[in-house]
């Protein structure tokens, strides 16, 4: 749609758009939304800052009521094993989400509750966005809002697997911090999450406080290794404290 927001990718990343286009064009494919590091990078770049991501594509989708699930559909259509799923030469991670009800959530652990709530909410709130590189045709795909990305990232940061904690903690910390730093200066990011599903704001606040404010010097040091801009301890405190307070207001 011509009124959709436009995000420009750097020259040379046409292959990513080709992969997104291939996913969207897969016959029978259900709706998807872009989340993960690529979505973080798009939002950070839209705010005028630099950020680094890998070229994986992380997508959320709605779980189907009857097989095949989206991942099997894509695997079959693009001649790839389901894990790791490759579409047009790009690795695609696909997360199926379900509508949630308080009664079903009660049976889940804190980690699983945040995963289910945040990813479904990121899917539902995603905004159709035109992605383009200079001189190439655009592709329109729903991209999770900043609030949706932060919610989903909170799960990755707060409840990582051992492998993820060892290899991706700095990048996960940085993703969350950069978005909070750029988009919560007026409290609007916290307000958007507060307006989300019940308990989401409290859960995101707990993760942000535990991972970034309990030892902000350690967090700043870890993030500095992955950041394209320096990060001070004070900057972490200045950005995250009001964000957590806003989530708990």
């Amino acid at each position: 749609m011509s009124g959709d927001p436009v995000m420009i990718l750097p020259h040379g990343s046409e292959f990513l758009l080709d992969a997104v286009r291939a996913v969207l064009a897969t016959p029978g494919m259900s709706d998807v939304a872009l989340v993960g590091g690529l979505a973080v990078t798009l939002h950070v770049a839209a705010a005028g800052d630099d950020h680094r991501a890998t070229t994986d594509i992380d997508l959320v989708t709605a779980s189907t009521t009857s097989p095949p699930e989206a991942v099997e559909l894509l695997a079959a259509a693009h001649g790839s094993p389901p894990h790791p799923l490759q579409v047009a030469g790009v690795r695609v991670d696909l997360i199926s989400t379900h509508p949630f009800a308080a009664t079903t959530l009660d049976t889940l652990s804190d980690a699983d509750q945040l995963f289910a709530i945040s990813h479904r909410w990121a899917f539902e709130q995603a905004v159709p966005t035109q992605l383009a590189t200079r001189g190439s045709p655009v592709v329109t795909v729903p991209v999770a809002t900043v609030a949706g990305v932060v919610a989903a990232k909170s799960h990755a940061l707060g409840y990582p697997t051992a492998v993820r904690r060892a290899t991706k903690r700095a990048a996960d910390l940085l993703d969350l911090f950069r978005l909070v730093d750029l988009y919560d200066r007026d409290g609007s990011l916290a307000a958007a999450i507060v307006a989300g599903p019940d308990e989401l704001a409290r859960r995101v606040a707990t993760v942000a406080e535990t991972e970034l404010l309990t030892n902000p010097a350690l967090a700043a040091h870890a993030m500095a290794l992955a950041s394209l801009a320096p990060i001070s301890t004070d900057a972490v405190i200045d950005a995250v404290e009001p964000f957590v307070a806003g989530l708990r207001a």
Partner: protein
Amino acid sequence: MGAYHEVSSVRLLSDIDHTGRTGGPMNDQATSTRAPRRLDDAIEVATQIAAAVRGIDLRRDGADSVTIRVGPSAWSATVVTRDALSIGGARTLIDRHPSGACLIVAHQISADAKDFLADHNERHPGRQWSWLDQRGELALHHGAAIGVVDRAGPAHRDPAPLPGGWRLAAPISGGPIRGRAGIGYGVALLLSPTRAPSIREVARRIGMSHGAVGTASLLLREYGLVRSDGRPQVPELFEAVAKVWQPPRVTPVRTVPSAAVAARLGAIGAADDDGWCIGGDNAALAWGAPVMSGGSRPWIWVPDLASARRAERALVVGSWDDHAAVIAVAPTPLVGTNRCPPPRPVPPEFLPTAHPVFLALELAQDPTRGREILAGWQPVETEFTRVW
């Protein structure tokens, strides 16, 4: 940038003679094709340090000499550069420079050498030796005038943190790669992994002595990073170089250079001439690295401190919160002499990119996504060998 900080003591004695002197022996690095640049860098560093200390002044007054002021006393000194100076080296220098005042600028000077020079100064008031040990001491001596500045860290370390896991270059006393010769030789092998360059060739290309590069090559062999046939052991050598891949200076600037400005600053030339080149994620993307980078602020490598200073003046020093580009001094001259036209244009388009090996060394500084990207990067251009 470049502030000389953590000054722990300054001693000034003003009852000095005012004769000063000019002239003196010629540059001690005459055999090196890059000696003038090395001398430029040494004078640049010493000038910066002195500028940050009240009561001391140091200004260039000739091709290889500076005027030093300590309080009311002023004298001219010939500048001599060394990577490292031992007591034996100090004796040799004194023999080679039988008269006049000298300032030694070295990455490290041993305690014995300093004691020897201080003792010599006491016994020979007319032949005074000052020194800048870039690990932490500037000692200026002339007659009764003494200016001593102690501090921790490398001479031109920025007190502000740097992005992307970068640390500024500092002298290294352990490990397989301990100085510019080691970095230069290691990089030369990585650039040409199937046809190892000779020590003489590397020495010429990086402007260092045959002996220094030979010593560096022996150390790499001792650590098993160079195989018996002279070729590099990869990826181990790449990892060893990545650990010490630190620019001497990194500065955010407020404007991106135009072609005209770059040409005026001597940045543009044939790819194998010294010059500027583009690093960073967009350059790596152009060479096929699976990196997605938001933002477009270029990271520009320049060959030396003097080039960086000129660029900073022309492009205006900014802050990390407000900058349009980054100017960084390359850890080795080989960055500037191995520039490559990229397969796809990378802004600013009039500059070539750094060689993919250097782009890979940049990504290696980021232990998370940078490493992940590196693991998935298979250069598509057949003339380059993947060494990571």
